């Protein structure tokens, strides 16, 4: 089956089994590294991407549901040479140890910040609740999301 996917503002035509979870298509067909396989069960959030503004587990979302939907991954937030506010916040707060969960955390935070520009600490915690981190980087992740809200305002202002 051939399907059109809009990923980070670009149209892609992908030929794949319609049952294929989006995660495998992002990683293998489109060569995007950020979303990670963690559990394949929708339990850990390492694979989180944003689809039409909502944080979604890409490991359990088959591509047949995604024709015409807008998919955003960490690659859509900026690049290593020109990182976006959320990426800069995570670098500034050194919010990673092994980093395997971080792209998923960032996409969950991205969905929150798109809806709620100035989240409270409680809102940040609640929004990140579905995502797991094993290194214990939680305090820095919370601080980075808080910081990202500020950096997003600054970049909008500029």
């Amino acid at each position, binding site marked *: 089956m051939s399907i059109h996917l809009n990923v980070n503002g670009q149209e892609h035509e992908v030929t794949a089994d319609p049952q294929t979870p989006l995660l495998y298509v992002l990683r293998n067909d489109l*060569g995007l590294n950020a979303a990670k396989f963690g559990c*394949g069960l929708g339990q850990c959030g390492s694979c989180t991407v944003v689809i039409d503004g909502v944080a979604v587990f890409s490991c359990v979302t088959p591509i047949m549901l995604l024709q015409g939907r807008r998919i955003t991954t*960490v690659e859509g937030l900026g690049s290593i040479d020109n990182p976006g506010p959320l990426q800069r916040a995570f670098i500034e707060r050194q919010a990673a140890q*092994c980093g395997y969960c971080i792209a998923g955390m960032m996409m969950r935070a991205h969905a929150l910040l798109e809806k709620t520009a100035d989240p409270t600490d409680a809102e940040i915690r609640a929004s990140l609740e579905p995502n797991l981190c094993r*290194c*214990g980087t939680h305090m820095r992740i919370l601080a980075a999301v808080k910081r990202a809200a500020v950096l997003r305002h600054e970049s909008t202002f500029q």
Partner: protein
Amino acid sequence: MSCVKITRRDFCASGGALILSFSIGAPRLKGAEGPRLPGSLSKAPYLDAWIRIDDDGAITVFTGKAELGQGIKTALIQVAAEELEVLPAAIHLITADTALTVNEGYTAGSHSLQDSGTAIRNAAAQVRELLIGAAASHWQVDATLLRAEQGAVIAGDGRSLKYAELVAKEFLHVQAQAQSKLKAAKDFRSMGRPMQRVDIPAKVTGGSAYVQDMRLPGMVHARMVRPPSPGASLVSLDSSQVESMPGVMKVVRNGNFLAVVATGEFQAVKAMRKLTAAARWSEHASLPLQSELPAFLTGLPAEDAVVIEQLADAPSAGLRRADGKILEATFTRAYQCHASMGPSCAVALFKGDALTVWNHSQGVYPNRAALAELLDMPAEKIRGIHTEGSGCYGHNGADDVAADAALIARMLPGTPVRVQWMREQEHLWEPFGPAMVTKVRATLDAQGLVNDWRYELWSNPHSSRPGPAAALLAARLIEHPFVPNPPHVQISPEGSGDRNSVPLYVFPGKHVQWHFLKDMPIRVSALRSLGAYMNVFSIESFMDELAQSAAADPVTFRLKHLQDPRAREVIQLAADKFKWGNKLPPRHGKGFAFARYKNLAAYCAVACEVSVELETGRIRLVRVVAAVDSGEIVNPDGIRNQTEGGILQSMSWTLYESVKFDATRITSSDWSTYPILRFASVPDSLEVHLIPRPGEPFLGAGEAAQGPGGAALANAVAHALGARIRDIPFTNERVRAALKANQSAPPNGPGPHRSEQSSR
């Protein structure tokens, strides 16, 4: 500017007191050349094993240690940049690779800065002095008039020569000296200051950062099908339907080792599911009864070893508590998972008679030896390249998945094979952190000080790492399996199951015994800090019980038993920053714990506050303050990050984590059956305070918080509940049971301790 290339011969002629050797890789004669070289230089004495400078000025630094998410790459770059007098950005660091780097064994035990950091620092300082010497010889001036700065040697009159202009082939192929001219801390530009991790930008922008991200040309995907339980055998398999599925290239069966290879990754996953359904296994009940695990462990045949035996001058009969009870307690810990976020993954390629394996092993050299034995091929024909995976926290499935990939790749010569485990395979088949039982008895003297301390621990060995092929899961599953040699107890300074089983406290009498359990009903291996987590939990819990019996404040009680000034300082700092004397809200408790990791690495003290929900038994960590002394600090933010992570991970182990099993199968197979810490339970604040020790040796800090983190939490829970829980994890049921037992105990009568909240 003319380009001067100074060769070893020139340098030799200049009268430099260097030991030159033309025998590449020849080991130093033992005892023949004076004192032992610092750190891992003792394993590889040639400077160019650690540092190379090309004639284009490129500087490459080599380490046999691996980045595990602990930030070691950044710290080693800081160390090298400091002594080489270059900017950190000028250094290209190559990590564990059997073709390129020194064999530094495992990246484990908080050893990387002590071993590799020390080697690189000394090598870099000696390289800098060689470069200065070379410039001095070229200019015919005294070397003491020259200095190195920003990649060049500079003379007092402003003349300068770039490093690239001073090096020639084999210039650095000289043996290191025992003594190096190390920079003083006051002159540091890189070390001792927070440096942003070099690996984080790629990790937050979708760069290729992990072995999982490798996509070699022509690479295919394999998935494993594991037995349903330990020891199960494959009885029948009809794989014909799987073989005809789209993309499927091969079904691999070798005894109980079963896998499927497909061109596409999701094709491999679908084929794995079908192959799982097609396999019939015979299983048998081989596991102990989980509810009786402590009794099972203490009943196993044991090889007993004395860790320390120090008799009290005047052994006392022991002061008993007011309620007449002897001071004695038993503590237990469940089997626990490493539970890495990313399942283990490896890529293997057989080409000609050589094998290359990319994986996230903590020891590419030991794993190469295991693979060589498994595949019956010379180790020199195998190249192991460390490629980051998700955090491992010890010996997870990293080595096993490399063996899986190698066995499959051997059947597909010329084709790179990527194997990634599924979540349930990681949870079910990683080697777990061992379950343990400990028992403490102590007596107090008339002054309320500990007189006699007796401690026993029951535990399997805490490492079953490769080396031997039998350490690999695949080697036990194949038709002609490798059988591990029975382990034997060994008492070493660093310890294993007995790590940190000897309290650092000064007690007149200390007796510590390890009942070493050879039988391994469930496969176990190294989990971050080995036995230290459980031993420190037990010791520090019991110190609080003793303090309570002596009617002493827990912090004061600890200080009364400590002479080491650095130990006292971290305790005092943590207590001060926590404001230990302050009152707490109702249903809150505070706890304190301390340990020096392995009794020879970093010092760590933790104070914390918890709240308890009486109705549900839910414990929440509210506030944590830690103090750490890790000797000379390279990257303060790196130590903070590791300590924060260690405390939260230890909290997760202590409150939530237990591998579940029935008589036949492990039943905790994912994040719903093996819950860990989530954001709702993260504390409101977590502070880490560091004590700088310029000029002191590096003391490994990566695992230092595991013991004190869990123990401080346990003490805070006991304080909040007025009853002590001695069994890890502190499930809500155990909390409710402790509350109930506390309520039913008569005041000041026998039974669990009453809360001493009012006295604090």
